[in-house]
């Protein structure tokens, strides 16, 4: 199967292409140097060509996503479309069904998406859903930040056992990387309590969030995992939390990266860059956070941009979610997982005229505009916490057009003038910077830049073509056109197959699930397992023999090898 994309205005920052007309040759799902004359030709006609979008943080599958669906039939009834000859029926806006999840990402030109959090014990559920999300490649990050074995090994300062546990936990959950949510707080929520900062001691385990974060970073690098530790900071969603965020990011300096990437990814920074002491004096500290990033190349972040309207907050940060539900008088689901973590789901409606919401909206944009290197600030909405991913085009348009931002600022609560720097920021991102925030950067942060996020030879043939001619458009003025083009790709090509044409799904192949097989010395594994066996004997409510995700749940797996023992060269 050969394909040739001709006359595309290719924006491919990894390979230094800023919109030059370049042909792209595709064979057997990969980008190649040349194809034969038999190749099917797609004439891009001068339109924008980018690598397929890569999302490093989105809640697309698993227990809490499904809890969101179950508690929100009012959301499911929006966005309904019937089955067609090609597609299954779609439902939902903030919590779409599995089919809508895949179709809508593909329709935006996205081809790879990572679920941001799964508890090991519930990972089988995550994979059941991932198996049914069509088209896109995907994977899931595994929660380690409040796990009892993690805290035990951190307390014992036994990094070999901790590395062995992370390696085994990734295998057990078929996870792609180490997620750490409100470290220590998940355990404390087991008794309805929380940590207040990175130096609190977790009762019963005698460790601090700081020690958990540093230790997980250490073993992450010992194992040479493709992705770094992916941190959801303590104190998320509390005014004044930027101090905790800065103190957490500072910890990155204690560990050296094993690969050409960050050692810490701090996620949905919109919710962690807050000043003030209460909702009255609440203000943006995005400048402080961005400034830190500008001076520390070993840390990356993503926006978690907020979108006005309906959202469903869902996170392993259980205590935050209870606080949210109380604050909003909203319905509340909680889903603590024994020995591992907490979680909560709460619907929210973001309103332009509520000052806190307006300030939050501006914080996300400030983060993107004040962080100089787009490789350090990825585009996300922390779907569906800040808002549904289908709004990425809105975010792109806002980042590319100060005119659009100023128009929007006029419609939101006036607090943004006093509490945010956004009104005075005139930076406008270009197509290359957008490509980094949505492709090259996300792929690099995930450690997948060899095959994802660019259009060089050897990359996966995941490509999007948008109905924009970069040399003929002024994004500042024509921001509506930018938004409309990025919301509905002219073509999305996944693994060499045309899956979307003119915004419509044309084929629904099943993508692959990425997970990391990280080897450790057998002796470390055996020692670690003695502890695990005890935990199952005494504390888990299920048998160890039924815990690990079986091969049946990964029909299209893509194993990434890592580990202390160097992976064998194939």
């Amino acid at each position, binding site marked *: 199967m050969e394909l040739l994309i001709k006359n595309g205005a290719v924006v491919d920052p990894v390979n230094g292409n800023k919109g030059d007309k370049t042909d792209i040759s595709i064979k057997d799902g990969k980008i190649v140097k040349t194809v034969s004359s038999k190749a099917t030709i797609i004439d891009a006609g001068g339109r924008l060509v980018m690598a397929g979008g890569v999302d490093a943080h989105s809640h697309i599958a698993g227990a809490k996503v499904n809890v969101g669906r179950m*508690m*929100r*039939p*009012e*959301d499911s*009834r929006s966005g309904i479309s019937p089955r067609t000859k090609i597609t299954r029926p779609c439902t939902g806006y903030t919590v779409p069904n599995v089919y809508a999840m895949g179709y809508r990402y593909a329709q935006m030109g996205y081809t790879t998406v990572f679920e941001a959090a799964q508890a090991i014990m519930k990972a089988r559920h995550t994979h059941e859903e991932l198996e049914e999300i069509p088209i896109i490649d995907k994977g899931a990050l595994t929660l380690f930040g409040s796990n009892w074995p993690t805290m035990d090994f951190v307390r014992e300062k036994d990094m070999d056992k901790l590395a062995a546990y992370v390696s085994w936990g990734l295998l057990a959950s078929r996870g792609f990387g180490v997620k750490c949510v409100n470290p220590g707080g998940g355990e404390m929520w087991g008794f309805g309590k929380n940590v207040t900062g990175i130096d609190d001691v977790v009762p019963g385990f005698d460790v601090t969030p700081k020690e958990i974060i540093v230790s997980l970073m250490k073993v992450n690098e010992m194992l040479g995992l493709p992705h770094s530790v992916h941190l959801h900071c303590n104190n998320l969603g509390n005014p004044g939390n930027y101090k905790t965020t800065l103190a957490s990011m500072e910890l990155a300096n204690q560990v050296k990266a094993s690969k050409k990437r960050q050692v810490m990814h701090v996620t949905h920074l919109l919710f962690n860059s807050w000043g003030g002491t209460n909702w009255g004096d609440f203000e943006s500290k995005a400048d402080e956070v961005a400034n830190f990033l500008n001076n520390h190349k070993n840390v990356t972040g993503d926006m978690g941009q907020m979108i006005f309207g309906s959202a469903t907050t869902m996170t392993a940060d259980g205590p935050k979610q209870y606080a949210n539900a109380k604050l909003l*008088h909203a319905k509340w689901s909680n889903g603590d997982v024994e020995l591992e973590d907490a979680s909560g789901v709460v619907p929210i409606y973001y309103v332009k005229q509520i000052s806190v919401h307006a300030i939050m909206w501006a914080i996300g944009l400030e983060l993107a505009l004040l962080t100089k290197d787009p490789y350090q600030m990825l585009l996300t909405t922390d779907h569906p916490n800040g808002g549904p991913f289908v709004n990425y085009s809105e975010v792109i348009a806002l980042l590319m057009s100060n005119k659009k931002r100023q128009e929007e600022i006029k419609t939101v609560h006036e607090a943004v003038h006093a509490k945010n720097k956004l009104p005075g920021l005139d930076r406008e991102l270009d197509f290359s910077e957008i490509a980094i925030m949505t492709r090259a950067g996300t792929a690099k942060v995930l450690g997948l830049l060899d095959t994802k996020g660019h259009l060089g030879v050897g990359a996966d043939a995941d490509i999007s073509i948008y109905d924009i001619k970069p040399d003929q458009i002024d994004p500042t003025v024509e921001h509506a056109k930018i938004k409309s083009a990025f919301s509905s790709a002219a073509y999305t090509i996944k693994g060499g197959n045309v899956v979307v044409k003119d915004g419509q799904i044309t084929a629904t192949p099943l993508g692959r699930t990425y997970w990391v097989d990280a080897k450790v010395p057998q002796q470390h594994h055996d020692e670690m397992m003695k502890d695990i066996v005890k935990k199952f004997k005494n504390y888990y409510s299920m048998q160890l023999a039924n815990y690990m995700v079986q091969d049946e749940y990964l029909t299209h797996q893509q194993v990434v090898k890592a580990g202390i023992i160097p992976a064998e060269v194939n």
Partner: protein
Amino acid sequence: MQTVTLKPKKEIKISVEGENISADIFSGKTEKEIHALVAWMGNQKTTIGELFSVKVEGSGPAADTKIILEGDFSRVKRIGEGMTAGLILITGNVDMHLGAKMSGGKISVKGNVDSWAGREMKGGELIIEGNAAYYLGAGYRGESCGMRGGKITVMGNALDFVGEHMCGGEIIVKGNTGILPGLSNNGGKIVIGGNTSRPGSEMSKGTIIVNGKVEEMMPVFKLEGDEIVDGVTYKKYTGDVIGNGKGLLYVK
């Protein structure tokens, strides 16, 4: 002025989805055009013309459109859904979701209505001469607001959950209601002529007036004393106290 008269051609056993039967949609349309409008029956996509005889007299905008439904419509759902203006006269019984999401105009029913009449209604008027079933003027599953505006009058009785999650508007039931009327009332007014049970649970705003007997009172209301409303003396309660609700419950 446009008058459209519909009559079922034969007995309808499987419910028909009648969301296209509304003044907004019929106005200005010819018989042929109304014939061609889609009406689903079960999993069969059919047309209004297949199921009903259609007579059209005159032509006019929605506000000047009158629809007369003659015969048995007890298996036709969603009549008048989202209607903004005009008039629907129903001579018999109708199925669920009558006047759901309607924002204007008037629907008048001689017979009984099934559940969810006036669901999420925003405005306009619903007059039911017979009885109403469950969830009169209520919301959809999971939504925080049911009826937001308009007026529903039931001359007979209504079953459980009248005005659940109501955020505005007025419901008058001349007869009795089932349990839990005005559940989670957040600003609507409900007047019950007859008896009911467990009114006003989780009420935060709005008013419920019961002129008959309250079989079981919710243990969440504070008795404030007697108060005269429209010349009638009631016991006045406030609640639901659990959420510091400001709802008013009057019981004769």
